[in-house]
């Protein structure tokens, strides 16, 4: 993540050079894939048809973009104006997250040029259909939600007025679409009861997915805004960081309770001690992503400084990544006779896509009004 330490005094900062190099490195395997097929660049096989790209780019990417709908909802629907200044960066991050998902699918899908078939011959019972349609429409919604930043920059009054007039319906649509597809990513795994380990498989997997996405949304906003703040030399708003840090333990608490009660009801709670080696994954996930942040966010000494809050938010993000990798890779059994270790090219494509997003975020902060659009009445409830 040090890549982002951009120094604005240089002509072409080192961080940007590294990011650009990653982007180019990520393009090479894509060319090979379109000549020799997926087998030439990846270790994916009939036994492990979904690998690093689905686990990281789709499962983690979509969940980590949850800051877009949680913050937009908090600011525009619940009208907590205190968080206004991070709403726009959160929406941009979410938009880039979803763009990343779509770009990753261009590599991962066998025939991405036929993806529009999902509209022509849909199977409305498929959770993947729901994810596909929601991701597509939500990406458009996010683009519209972010578009005022561009219109403000160029002083285009008419489109600005149009977008402002539909802003609330857009945000509500965004919340609905996110609720549906964040949970549907869990429903997708419901289809694999014989493959997914019982520590994770449960009929309420969709609710777990939604809950953990809502928890990681604010954490990701803390994580991302601290990094961009460091890279571009902004001052972090401590009140926002502390407020988000106070909210997250509540959401994580519900998540932890769901997980434990679910295992108790299913009579599988003993597995957390006996199901070696999977229980190790489970414990790491629970400790890093749920228990530790719940305790740490409640410590006064942690809440005092932004740097400490940032590191605890990082734990929440890490915990979610571990969870998504557990359910979609480590605890998801392969067909017998196969093994899977991702190739460097699989990593290169994912890293290249992340670098793409970071470059766009950097450009956006340089060129567009990202923070300074606070409305006049911001002082009303927040000032108290």
């Amino acid at each position, binding site marked *: 993540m040090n890549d982002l330490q951009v120094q604005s005094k240089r002509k072409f900062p080192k961080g940007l050079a590294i990011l650009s190099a990653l982007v180019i490195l990520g393009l090479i395997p894509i060319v090979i894939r379109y000549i020799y097929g997926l*087998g030439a660049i990846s270790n994916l*096989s009939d036994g492990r048809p979904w690998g690093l790209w689905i686990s990281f780019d789709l499962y983690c990417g979509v969940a980590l973009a949850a800051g877009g709908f949680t913050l937009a909802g908090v600011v525009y629907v619940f009208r907590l104006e205190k968080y206004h200044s991070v709403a726009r960066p959160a929406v941009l991050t979410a938009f880039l997250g979803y763009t990343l998902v779509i770009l990753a699918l261009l590599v991962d899908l*066998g025939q991405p040029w036929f993806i529009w078939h*999902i509209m022509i011959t849909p199977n409305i*019972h498929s959770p993947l*259909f729901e994810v596909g349609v929601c991701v597509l429409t939500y990406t458009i919604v996010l683009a519209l939600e972010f578009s005022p930043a561009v219109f403000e920059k160029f002083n285009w009054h008419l489109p600005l007025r149009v977008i402002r007039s539909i802003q609330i319906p857009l945000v509500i649509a965004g919340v609905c679409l996110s609720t549906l597809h964040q949970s549907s990513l869990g429903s997708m795994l419901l289809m694999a009861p014989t493959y997914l380990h019982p520590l994770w498989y449960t009929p309420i*997997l969709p609710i777990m997915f939604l809950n953990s996405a809502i928890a990681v949304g604010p954490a990701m906003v803390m994580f991302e805004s601290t990094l961009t703040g460091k890279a571009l030399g902004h001052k972090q708003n401590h009140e926002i960081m502390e407020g988000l840090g106070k909210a997250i333990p509540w959401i994580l608490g519900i998540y932890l309770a769901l997980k434990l009660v679910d295992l108790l009801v299913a009579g599988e709670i003993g597995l957390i001690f006996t199901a070696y080696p999977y229980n190790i994954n489970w414990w790491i996930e629970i400790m890093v992503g749920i228990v530790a942040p719940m305790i740490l966010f409640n410590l006064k000494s942690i809440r005092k400084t932004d740097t400490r809050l940032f590191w605890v938010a990082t734990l929440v993000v890490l915990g979610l990544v571990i969870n998504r990798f557990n359910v979609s890779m480590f605890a998801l059994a392969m067909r017998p006779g196969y093994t899977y270790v991702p190739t460097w090219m699989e990593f290169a494509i994912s890293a290249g896509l992340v670098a793409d997003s970071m470059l766009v975020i950097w450009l956006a902060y340089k060129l567009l009004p990202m923070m300074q659009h606070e409305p006049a009445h911001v002082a009303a409830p927040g000032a108290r």
Partner: protein
Amino acid sequence: MSFGVLYDSTKCIGCRGCQVACKQWNQRKGEQTTNTGSIENPPLLTSKTVTKIRFTETDYNGKFHFVFTKLQCMHCEHPACAEACPVSALQKRPDGPVTYDDSRCFGCRYCMTVCPFGIPTFDWDTPIPWIRKCTFCADRVTSGLKPACVTTCPSGALKFGDREELLVEAKARIAAEPGRYVNHIYGEKEVGGTSWLLLSPIPFDKVGLPTLPEEPVVVNVERAMSFVPPVLVGVAAIMTGVYWLAKRRETNGKKTAGKKEGAVKK
């Protein structure tokens, strides 16, 4: 009426004529393999080999057994792949076959991830790949022919017919010679039943077939997906309500801000 095929392992002679016939009818290429120490070849199902005979050498009841098992799509009664496919490329026909439509598929491989038998395969080595699996020779069945593998089978190990009648026959065979078979028709109840049925002299987990529950794997998904419309309406309604309340509090707060400080907070 729903068709099925009964594979009787004890009648199979391991000639693999079915493998060859399948390749001929479905125009699947041969593949280069390496010596695995067994005459079983190729070692795994691939997009070029959608059916194969597995050879198993094992002990059962203190006796040595050399057992053949035909692997191919089982054509489930409640297929997970068809439920999963977002573009309806995979579909269960009322007469039995689970078919695959090339012109719809865009290669998401969700069907491969969810198949409880681990059957669908993918063209990993071509820039324009498709999913491949046994289609029950649906084109032949439509024209009143038997699947290519059944037609070619010289020993009578494969029998094509009505699934219910085949079940009756399988039970009769087990009853007639209980020592010859294990008392289990693989595919009768597995994940809600399959069109293809297997008989074996040793338990099916010993020949590497997965042990599966009787409940179709699509049950939890169907329940979860049935919540989608109410959740959509519910979340939209709640969000609109919250917005309306928050907005009203905001305007009220502004109006009364001069008189009552408390109104802003509550």
